[in-house]
């Protein structure tokens, strides 16, 4: 560390993406420079457009007081999902670029190796930390407190701070497009390549601090969710009455709490190596880079279960709802979820079978990895039995769920193959592995999140999404996925290493092209998704579901209006069985006017979230560019803000019983005026959110 760095640290003109192209205008430099500059301009233009629109429509104040400072778990959840969708768009475009490069990659291609390396590093980092994580955190945030009949999470302001940290990390990755270059070390940034000797630029620093911020945010989120589920359940909501999505949220939260610390340690140690010349993972003076692999995967493997468990929860909800049946094998699903959560901590070594430890260790971890197949298999059967003799409705969330079941089983199978160390030795570091983890991550996690998006969107915004374009998008996702990744299995067995920018084997070309076309179809899927959102907003008046139960839902998040009031429930429900809302509808107590209402206490808005977001972003930016005055300033500001928050006392506000009564009556009036519809009409505009009562699984 050089304390006497210039005031702007290592920031220079050459940090801009078009600098190389102007200085050394070779053909390769120009192509790469144009792509990088195009991406950077998109970020800049996007940011400017946002500022202009907010100013033009005078939305700054509402943005600040209704959204950014809001401690409401529903709004925080929505903001998480917005981050996830923006980041999804970026990382997906990068994926298409990479597949395009490989399609033309016979003996060259159009991207420079460094540019290609940046693409796969950012793609992986974003998809895991800034797409999947915010998406699932957002969905849990929105849905879980309502499912357990709570008014909010246990620590609402902490929730807002977690969002701020995640947003700061995402912003850091976005800024790396404009200023400087991101890491080329892959999403797991193995040293010694990422050490200062071999990667002297700012890339790994961007990676380190983006992950540190996201990791810290996730730890806090995990604590918040776990405590919420332990402490805030409505009366009568016993453990075995909780909806399965809440169970998966709990297990995910527990994994977050215990799996994030190893990541924090690994990135912090790498940072100490890079900034202060420590020797954790260096080649010289007793450093041991294998420690990093171990630490990183101690986090990394539980992480994939953090991602997949909530998706399992979503499928449990959608399959049960759209089959019109109670979930089959609830207890076994709960047990399987817990088993997966625990086993996830015992398999991390299978990410480095080939590192050189002895065969016994490989065997133990190989067997442990295969064991995970058992509880997962139990779940698959439970879902199929849930559909059995149900009246399955092929809505968009259900199509995603069906695509998941078929494709995920295939991905799981290739996982069992890879869990065998002897096979792993053959295919490790080939695109076979890439095919495997995309085969579980895309149909598993992403389809799950998109299923959740379509399922709960009407609850969050009060109108249904366009069904037709949703279906087009879902089918494009499913078939695009098949096209993009199944060829990679074959390519992997044919010996194509992952992360190769170019190759010399002509027989790879047809399969590479197939994968490229698949990727293009996925791009179409994304565009269809955006088009669907636009159409749905345009036609929202025809698709309102204010009454709040458009899909004949089974759990408590459907037991209020759409969108729900900020306090969720006018009266905290009393739970007497599983599928609480279905039970309430059957007993005719779903839409009652209580005799008395009471004042409801809610947390006041707090600027802590946005403040921490701004401070931590500036802190990380200062660290990346060695701008020490900024680092010190932000560090002090962070401490000061926490102390100030500690001294804050006036943090609660009251929603008067009068207002609660008014809002509740307005909703019940709407219920009374609504016509209950049969499931055959649920995707038409007669659906205003009131479901006709039908017996389980019977054709009406």
């Amino acid at each position: 560390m050089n304390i006497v760095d210039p005031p702007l640290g290592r920031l220079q003109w050459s940090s801009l993406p078009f600098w190389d192209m102007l200085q050394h205008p070779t053909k390769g430099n120009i192509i790469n420079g144009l792509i990088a500059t195009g991406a950077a301009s998109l970020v800049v233009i996007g940011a400017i457009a946002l500022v202009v629109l907010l100013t033009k429509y005078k939305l700054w104040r509402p943005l600040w007081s209704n959204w950014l400072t809001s401690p409401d778990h529903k709004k925080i959840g929505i903001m998480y999902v917005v981050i996830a969708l923006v980041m999804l768009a970026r990382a997906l475009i990068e994926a298409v670029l990479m597949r395009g490069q490989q399609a033309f990659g016979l003996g060259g291609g159009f991207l420079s190796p460094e540019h290609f390396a940046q693409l796969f590093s950012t793609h992986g980092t974003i998809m895991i930390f800034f797409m999947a994580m915010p998406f699932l955190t957002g969905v849990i945030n929105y849905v879980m407190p309502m499912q357990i009949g709570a008014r909010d999470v246990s620590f609402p302001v902490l929730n807002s701070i977690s969002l701020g940290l995640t947003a700061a990390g995402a912003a850091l990755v976005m800024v790396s497009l404009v200023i400087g270059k991101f890491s080329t070390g892959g999403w797991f940034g193995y040293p010694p390549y990422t050490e200062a000797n071999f990667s002297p630029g700012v890339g790994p620093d961007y990676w380190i601090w983006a992950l540190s911020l996201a990791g810290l945010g996730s730890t806090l989120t995990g604590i918040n969710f776990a405590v919420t589920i332990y402490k805030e359940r409505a009366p009568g909501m016993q453990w075995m009455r909780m909806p399965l999505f809440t169970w998966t949220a709990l297990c995910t939260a527990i994994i977050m709490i215990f799996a994030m610390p190893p990541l924090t340690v690994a990135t912090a140690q790498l940072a100490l190596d890079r900034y202060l010349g420590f020797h954790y993972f260096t080649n010289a003076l007793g450093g041991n880079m294998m420690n990093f692999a171990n630490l990183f995967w101690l986090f990394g493997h539980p992480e994939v279960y953090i991602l997949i468990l909530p998706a399992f929860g979503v499928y449990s909800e959608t399959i049960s709802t759209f089959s019109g049946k109670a979930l089959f094998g609830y207890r076994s699903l709960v047990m399987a979820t817990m088993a997966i959560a625990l086993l996830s901590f015992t398999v991390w070594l299978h990410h480095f079978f080939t590192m050189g430890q002895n065969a016994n260790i490989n065997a133990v971890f190989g067997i442990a990895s295969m064991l995970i197949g058992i509880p997962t298999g139990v779940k698959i059967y439970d879902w199929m039995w849930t559909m059995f003799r149900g009246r399955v409705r092929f809505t968009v969330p259900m199509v995603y769920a069906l695509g998941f079941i078929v494709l995920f089983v295939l991905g799981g199978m290739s996982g069992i193959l890879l869990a065998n160390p002897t096979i792993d030795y053959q295919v490790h570091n080939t695109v076979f592995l890439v095919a495997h983890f995309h085969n579980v991550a895309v149909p598993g996690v992403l389809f799950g999140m998109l299923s959740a998006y379509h399922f709960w969107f009407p609850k969050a915004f009060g109108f249904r999404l366009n069904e037709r374009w949703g279906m087009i998008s879902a089918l494009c996702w499913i078939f695009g996925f098949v096209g993009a990744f199944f060829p990679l299995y074959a390519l992997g067995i044919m010996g194509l290493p992952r992360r190769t920018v170019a190759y010399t084997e002509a027989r790879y070309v047809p399969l590479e092209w197939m994968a490229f076309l698949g990727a293009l179809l996925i791009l179409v899927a994304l565009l269809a998704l955006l088009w669907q959102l636009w159409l749905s907003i345009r036609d929202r008046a025809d698709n309102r579901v204010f009454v709040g139960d458009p899909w004949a839902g089974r759990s408590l998040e459907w037991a209020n209006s759409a969108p729900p009031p900020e306090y969720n429930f006018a009266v905290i429900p009393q739970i007497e069985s599983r599928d609480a809302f279905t039970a309430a509808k059957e007993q005719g107590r779903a839409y009652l006017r209580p005799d008395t209402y009471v004042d409801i206490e809610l947390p006041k808005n707090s600027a802590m979230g946005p403040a921490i977001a701004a401070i931590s972003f500036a802190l990380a930016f200062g660290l990346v560019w060695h701008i020490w005055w900024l680092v010190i300033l932000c560090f002090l500001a962070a401490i000061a803000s926490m102390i100030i928050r500690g001294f804050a006392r006036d943090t609660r506000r009251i929603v008067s019983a009068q207002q609660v009564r008014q809002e509740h009556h307005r909703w019940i009036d709407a219920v009374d005026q609504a016509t209950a519809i049969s499931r055959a009409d649920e995707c038409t505009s007669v659906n205003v959110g009131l479901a006709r009562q039908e017996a389980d699984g019977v054709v009406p």
Partner: protein
Amino acid sequence: MSEQAIKHPGLNLGPAHGKDDEAAGTVMFGFWVFLMSDAILFAMVFATYVTSLHATAGGPGPRDLYDIKSVFIETMLLLASSFTFGMASLALKYKHRKARLIGWMVVTLVLGVAFLGFELHDFSSMFVKGGVPSRSGFLSAFFDLVPLHGLHVTAGGIWLICLVGQIVRYGLDTKTKLGIMRLALFWHFLDIVWIAIFSVVYLAGLT
């Protein structure tokens, strides 16, 4: 105190504190969960230290650098501070005068600061003997583990000062009480981590 009255693990305010005790349930449980996450953080740093024990790369090792007398004094200081914080907790729980509570807290702070002073002195004498973190993998691991604990103690000290400030400003309202209780957990937890440090790092290093 009856079994039912206990709303949350460990240290309790007790039913005499009414709504403050009610509020403690969620907050204290949340803090316990945080501590467990923090414990994993320390555990991973310990694991790094243990796996780097022999990575001295020809530089100074434990016997050249550690000073058992100083570590013993630090241990005693921290242990005493745990006890004095216990006394502060009693003063809070049994509603003694505020001065008594603040007194015990200040004593704890003084002991904590003394601990940090000795620790810094240890580090500087290690530096003088060539034991700087950039010398070897072993020393890097040492300077990850022990100062991490020291940083936690520092954070605890700052928190303690803020809490005294809150007592003076607002008296013993719910938020202050819960703050003191959480700091108590934090402080005792750090003492437990220190047991692991003096055993694994110093005593085992000097055998």
